């Protein structure tokens, strides 16, 4: 039961990924695409953690942790690009 609910949550998350990709493809400017990248990262991170629990391996959390720590760098760098800061 709990595993089925986890699978369902993963499927909902994956559907959300596809929606964010719609914005990624459409997004009129790079800034909108950066927002889509941000959302994609924030969806994938809990998906990784949930899949780690589903597979029963704690080490998968380390990958989610790496994303949690480093994912904001890309968007920040794009913002600093607009400021001519890189």
């Amino acid at each position, binding site marked *: 039961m709990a595993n089925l609910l986890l699978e369902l949550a993963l499927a909902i998350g994956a559907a959300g990924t596809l929606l964010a990709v719609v914005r990624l493809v459409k997004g009129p400017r790079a800034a909108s695409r950066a927002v889509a990248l941000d959302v994609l990262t924030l969806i994938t991170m809990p998906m990784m953690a949930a899949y780690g629990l589903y597979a029963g391996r704690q*080490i998968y959390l*380390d*990958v989610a*942790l*790496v994303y949690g*720590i*480093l994912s904001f*760098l890309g968007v*920040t*760098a794009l913002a*600093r690009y607009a*400021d*001519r*800061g*890189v």
Partner: protein
Amino acid sequence: MKQIISIIAIVTIGFVLWQLVPIAMPSGFGAVTHHYVADGLKDNGGSNLVTSIVVNYRGFDTLGEVTVLFLSVSGAAFVLRRRSGLEVQEPVPASEIVQTGARMLFAPIVVFGAYIFVHGHLTPGGGFQGGAVIASGVLLLLLANRDRALPHGLLSWVESLSGFGFVLAGLAGLIVAGSFLANKGVLPLGQWNRLVSAGVIPIIYILIGLKVGSELSVLLDVMVHAAGDEEAN
């Protein structure tokens, strides 16, 4: 036109790779693979088989990879060296939130990178990943303030000494156990799944992590400070 050609190329390559899948993925394992899987953990005392293969059985490859990274950073530094007397457009300073965030997050990011390469023989990750995370921390500092000067002398010393240490560890294996980068007999293997275990593997991973981290930091610094052609005009 160019886009159509690209799409056709992608589809063709995808089709060819799809056809190659059964050839590239043999159903069974070879003798070497069997040896790695069966004896890898016993030989090296680490709990991460991938680490045993990367650092011990294929340690020479890793040494080569680190050297390739060093060469590429040297090449980038040579090509993009700072040219003086050019007009560079002044950047808008980063807001206080970004600067404070960079100051606060730098230490946790570096500690996390160190955690990754110190635990390389127990959990996924290792020298290269940890070094990349540390370089990301340096990148955050550079994003907050482009003009921040990195301690180049320290970085080059760390880089050179860790490369030297890697070769020394390999030579120790050659002297004691008879093959370059051998693990058995150089240091005690210790207790399984402990932080201090697996012989020289953690030491080599720490050295790789320091080397990769300093190299990537220097690369970022060189790229951020290089005056490109756009600004030169």
